[in-house]
């Protein structure tokens, strides 16, 4: 046993796969200990907030301010007006503002803004301009309004008695806050999803669910497959025919179709994570049965098995002690692949809306389902689906790698 393990861990493929898998597993265990937030809590009031740290505006205004000698105006000018905006402003000014082209210098941003503020009017007659373009200029105008003014921003509070505004603070352009000072902040490393839930927290929770689904599905499929395969191979005869008949039936019908039909008929109410896992397991045992059966058939006429038979050992004992150990390596490998395909099957089911329900659990498939429904790939919200895809790929990759590694160790033909 020790020797086998040493051999296994000497296979680089197995080790890489194992490390990735263990890392994922550990993350799902450790992360919830660090971040206690409910993965299903709808924090963000909107769709797909960008990844980053969000600090409370009120806190940062009221907290300690530091003065930094940085030229903030040009910084904000550049961020508010792109080169394209400048070209558009020039175009508008020459076309509708009555400014000569020679008077406009695109290098001189402040001069350009001065001209703009003097000449632009939202209500001006702008023949030939489309509505979307007119609205673009209006937005641009709003954006740069007062950008040059050096005056401080004044904060005011409403007096509850008189209803009048009373000045409470002023903010100069060179005042900064240290984000660490802001008490109310929240970091979304992977942004939020369409419900405004923290994607990373949800992803970790979903990975955990998916691993559980994979494990349960794998166990169910392996147990059923192994049991039927052993009986069918060892007993033979009518029992073998019958079992193989059933197995062939299940092999012929695409298991995914079966999966969809069963999930659909179960209905959303009863469709918890465990039930989905069991359904997946019950539709994917056929290949294990077939392989186990064929191996058992070749094993059952070996000398040691015959010896056991002659010694009057029970069938149970022969199967468990004389046959199963020879299959063990294969069964472990098949089990690993079953886990992997179970996780993928859950993701596919959930993407069809036939997985567990959204308000009770997070799963990788559900996350992808909602990201697609809210067109995340179309509006550039990569964080809502890409990490999910990567996670699924990593799980499947690590499990398959472990399987290949084991194969190299156990299969004499592949051994170096």
């Amino acid at each position, binding site marked *: 046993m020790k020797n086998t393990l040493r051999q296994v861990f000497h296979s680089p493929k197995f080790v890489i796969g194992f490390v990735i898998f263990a890392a994922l597993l550990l993350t799902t265990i450790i992360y919830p200990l660090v971040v206690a937030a409910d993965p299903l809590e709808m924090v963000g009031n*909107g769709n797909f907030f960008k990844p980053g740290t969000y600090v409370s505006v009120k806190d940062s205004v009221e907290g300690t301010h530091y003065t930094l000698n940085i030229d903030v105006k040009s910084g904000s000018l550049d961020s508010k007006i792109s080169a394209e905006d400048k070209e558009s402003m020039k175009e508008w000014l020459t076309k509708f503002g009555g400014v000569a082209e020679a008077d406009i210098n695109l290098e001189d941003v402040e001069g350009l803004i001065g001209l703009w503020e003097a000449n632009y009017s939202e209500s001006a007659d702008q023949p030939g301009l489309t509505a*979307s*373009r007119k609205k673009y200029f209006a937005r641009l105008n709003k954006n740069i309004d007062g950008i040059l003014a050096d005056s401080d921003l004044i904060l005011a509070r409403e007096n509850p008695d008189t209803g009048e505004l009373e000045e409470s603070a002023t903010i100069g352009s060179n005042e900064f806050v240290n984000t660490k000072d802001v008490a109310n902040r929240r970091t979304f490393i992977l942004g939020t999803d369409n*419900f*405004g839930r923290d994607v990373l927290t949800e992803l970790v929770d979903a990975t955990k669910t998916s691993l559980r689904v994979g494990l349960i599905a794998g166990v169910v499929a392996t147990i059923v497959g192994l049991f039927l395969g052993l009986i069918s191979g060892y007993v033979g005869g009518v029992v073998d025919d019958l079992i193989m008949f059933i197995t062939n039936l299940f092999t012929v019908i*695409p298991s995914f179709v079966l999966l969809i039909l069963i999930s659909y008929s179960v209905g959303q*109410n009863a469709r918890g994570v465990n039930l989905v896992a069991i359904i997946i397991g019950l539709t994917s045992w056929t290949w294990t049965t077939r392989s186990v059966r064929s191996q058992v058939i070749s094993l059952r006429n070996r000398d040691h098995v015959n010896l056991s038979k002659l010694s009057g050992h029970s069938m149970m004992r022969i199967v468990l002690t004389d046959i199963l150990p020879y299959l063990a390596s294969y069964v472990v490998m098949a089990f690993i692949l079953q886990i992997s395909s179970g996780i993928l099957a859950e993701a596919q089911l959930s993407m069809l809306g036939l997985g567990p329900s959204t*308000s009770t659990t997070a799963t990788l498939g559900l996350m992808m389902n909602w990201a697609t429904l809210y067109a995340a790939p*179309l*509006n550039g919200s990569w964080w809502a689906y890409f990490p999910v895809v990567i996670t699924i790929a990593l799980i499947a990759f690590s499990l398959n790698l472990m399987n290949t590694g084991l194969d190299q160790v156990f299969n004499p033909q592949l051994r170096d």
Partner: protein
Amino acid sequence: MKSRSKKLVALFATVAMTASLLAGCGGGNAPAATDTPAATDGAAATDDAAATDDAAATDDAAATDDAAATDDAAATDDAAAGTATAGDTNSTPRNETLYFAGQQWGTINDWNPFSTNSNNPMCVQQKDSSRTLIYETMFMFNMLDGELYPLLGTEWSWDDDTLTSMTVKLNTDAHFSDGTALTANDVAYTWDANVKYESSLGMDFSNYIESITAVDDATVSIKCKLDDAGNPANPLKVQQLLQQMYVMQKAYLEKVEARNNSEKEAMKLDKMEDLVASGPYLPFFDDDQKIVFIRDENYWGQAASMWGKLPAPKYVAHVIYADNNAGQVALEAGDVDVCQQFTTDVQKLWEEKNLPITTYIDEPPYGECATMPSCWMNVEKPGLDQVEVRKAIAMATDYDQIIASAMSNQSPTFTQVPRSMMNPTDAEQGLFDHDALKELQFTGNDIEGANALLDEAGIVDSDGDGIREYNGTPLSFKAECPDGWTDWMASLEIVASSAKKIGIDIQTFFPDTNTFYDDITTGNFEICMNSPSGSSISNPWGRCMQFLSSLYADLEVNWSGNWSQYRNDEADEILAKIPLETDEATLKEYYTRLNEIYLTDVPSFALMYRPELFYIVNESVWTGYPMKDDGTNIPPTDCTDGYGIAALYNLTLVE
């Protein structure tokens, strides 16, 4: 012996396997088959319903392995549609064609206004604001000011103060596409046919209209049905007919009757591909890829008494996209001019992608909201018959979250437009006393308040499983809406997660559209989501009926409204008085009282406001679309519905 039995087993196995294979195939196809008719539920499914319905189709694409799949599917569908367009002989010049998306899903069935299942919304859409591209109504409704604008009719008036009969004058310039004049006889004959062949319009309006007769060629007289007291059954519904009923040609109807032997079912199934109509466009080409209408160069509306010119686009085309994502890709690429689709974060299209795309309003809610998808609670189910339970669910629901995330901010919030049975348009908001309702207008996410309300009513969690019990049964309900209607599904998920916080278990259930309508029309549901009607000449009365009238609760199969099956005698009494009342102060009193009843008993509660049609335009080819405050007073009804069709006459090519 042994070998023979083996052969037998083998034979049996083969037969069984073949049979199971066939069974498997049948099973696999079944869901797809049920999806298709779903989109075409003429009676109740609004367009946007159909728009979101397609997402059921996305599912098929999604069955392939990964997230990229839908993206790819969208792209390839688009490409497929594109090549088909280029390939067929009916491709039309881009600068003469106005392309739509989001109205039509799947192949059309027929061109027949009597049909219950045309799946041809570009042509046949008789509703509050009828679509008048091919068939025309007598008047056009403008949801912005609530007025009727002349189309085939020039003016209408009640004959006297009893509101028992109405006279409508027709435009003498009006003629059909075959050149024959459109007269009062056509109007009268169309009405008779609608009644005789029991079209859904005929079935509905014959409760209120006794007869429609031609006085002379240009004058129509409409007689109302009278109740026992001699009052008209409902003058509002009579007005509504003016904006809803397509006027068809008598001669053509007679021809259709002749070929169908005037049989009711046959009439409804007639394809009417050889149609004669009065509208500005005629059918040009259609298949499973796209539908194209061509302008009728002899359209009567170019007479000075109507538009004075022809609509700008020579062709109106709708490519049939596989799903919303495919439509959105085409919109971004400039292959679609007017898009009637719910689009997540629509502002990103112009703010981040800098595309020449815009909506009616430049900032949230981006459109003119006219309806309010609501959560209906079946008051006949134990638990939901308790007003405290209903009110608690309504108070706990996080509406801000629904509006910001499920609806992507395309709705005013309930703090901006406090809840009532009125839509957020100024016309309806002015119809009730806002101060009187203030105390009752819950704004949501009030977990404490909801908990207190339930505790006070003695509905508590006595067995400690986190779910409250009423009469010993845990409060556990199933909330349903059709699969694929994204924003509704997300809304119900948010309702469920809010309810969890107050100890009420709500599970979401997304059946296919047909099952959903079966459930709600027969009362076989606990909680469901559905829209009441939007803007029309008979609203907000019609909508109040849908929320409160016990008339609908008594129906065996209920497509009309009040799916909560709520009954209140006082509400019924007021609802009966409103259509006959003309005094504004009294009306205001009535509506205020109705809203009080509604907000106290909470048989249903609105989850969001919503435009009847989404309206996103890409200005890379055409411009001149109606925009808010542009002075045209044309409603943003996708350039096709009600008075919104006036937009087609203002379009110009982008320079």
